[in-house]
């Protein structure tokens, strides 16, 4: 992952995300996996302070996290682009109207060297759906901006009782290519 300006080894993106979520008391993680998210999922599974589990569908995870929020516990949903594409109805009928600060971390597939035409096509629905529902979203491309964006986004979501989507670009994660 290279070195930072002062010569110290830079932390990996997944370690930064995991630590920043925890610092904001986001300790309940539901996911449907994605290859790119594997190191993040593994590092959260290894953390005894975090409850992390897979669900059968992304919609189900959104429901669980909505219930947990109402019960006083913060959480985040991790998925890939195609998983987000299954969520329009529950965002429009539950998360947005109930003002649930759902934190969504989306591994951005379908761009910058995608090999799978289905991923490339479904990726085009991502930002239009978010914009149609006026859901705040940020595309994170740089390691040096990662902690700031995740930290401030979680705080804003909670303070304004609104969902947020953080799109993890291949520029940050390396993405997935045919070889990987």
């Amino acid at each position, binding site marked *: 992952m290279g070195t930072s300006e002062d010569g110290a080894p830079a932390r990996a993106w997944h370690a930064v995300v995991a630590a920043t979520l925890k610092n904001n008391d986001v300790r309940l993680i539901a996911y449907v996996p994605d290859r790119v998210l594997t190191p993040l999922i593994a590092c959260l599974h290894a953390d005894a302070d975090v409850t992390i589990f897979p669900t*059968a569908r992304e919609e189900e995870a959104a429901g*669980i996290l909505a*219930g947990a*929020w*109402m*019960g*006083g516990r913060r959480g985040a949903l991790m998925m890939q682009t195609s998983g987000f594409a299954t969520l329009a109805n529950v965002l429009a009928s539950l998360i947005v109207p109930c003002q649930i600060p759902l934190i969504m971390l989306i591994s951005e597939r379908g761009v910058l060297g995608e090999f799978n035409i289905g991923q490339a096509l479904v990726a085009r629905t991502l930002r239009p759906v978010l914009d149609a529902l006026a859901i705040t979203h940020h595309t994170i491309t740089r390691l040096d901006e990662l902690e700031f964006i995740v930290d401030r986004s979680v705080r804003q979501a909670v303070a304004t009782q609104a969902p947020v989507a953080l799109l993890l670009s291949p520029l940050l994660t390396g993405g997935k290519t045919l070889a990987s």
Partner: protein
Amino acid sequence: MPHGDNAALGNAKVMNRFELTRRILAQLEREEAVVAGIGNTNFDLWACGPRAQNFYMLGSMGLAVPIALGVALAQPRRHVVALEGDGSLLMQLGCLTTVATLGPANLTIVLMDNGIYQITGSQPTPAASADFVALARAAGIARASWAADEGDCERLLRAALAGGPSFIAARIDTQPAVATTERDPARIRERFMRGLGVRT
């Protein structure tokens, strides 16, 4: 062994959803949370009168059980009851395996099985020969039973409140819900959070 003498699907009595919901609520004495699904399950819960620990889900068909599971994970000392329709559960059957895998002791699922999508015009569901209790057991929820009648449902619920996760299925008649929930999602959510002691 509370589930040893289960009723089979075929000899479970067909009950009324409002009447059963009323009886279920009467068993809840410890501020248990109740999450009711889209349409009739939340309409009949609403009809039973105001209760601060009730969540009425207005959209997001199929998510009553996941929402209840989330509440159960957040508040392990409070029991949570999900009231869900059969058509709705069919849309999110995978949630049963998640419940079984996480195994929250404080979660009970009550399925109101009328065999139809009643609220959209009573079309049949694509589950004519399915047994939902068998599905729940196969998903890994060992405490899963058909309620033979109203009294049996109360007995199963008492056992479920003592430790779950549990799944109780009730055959339901085709009477419509007796009231309609007020459509104000933000207010419903805020009232529920206050009822759960998350907000003051």
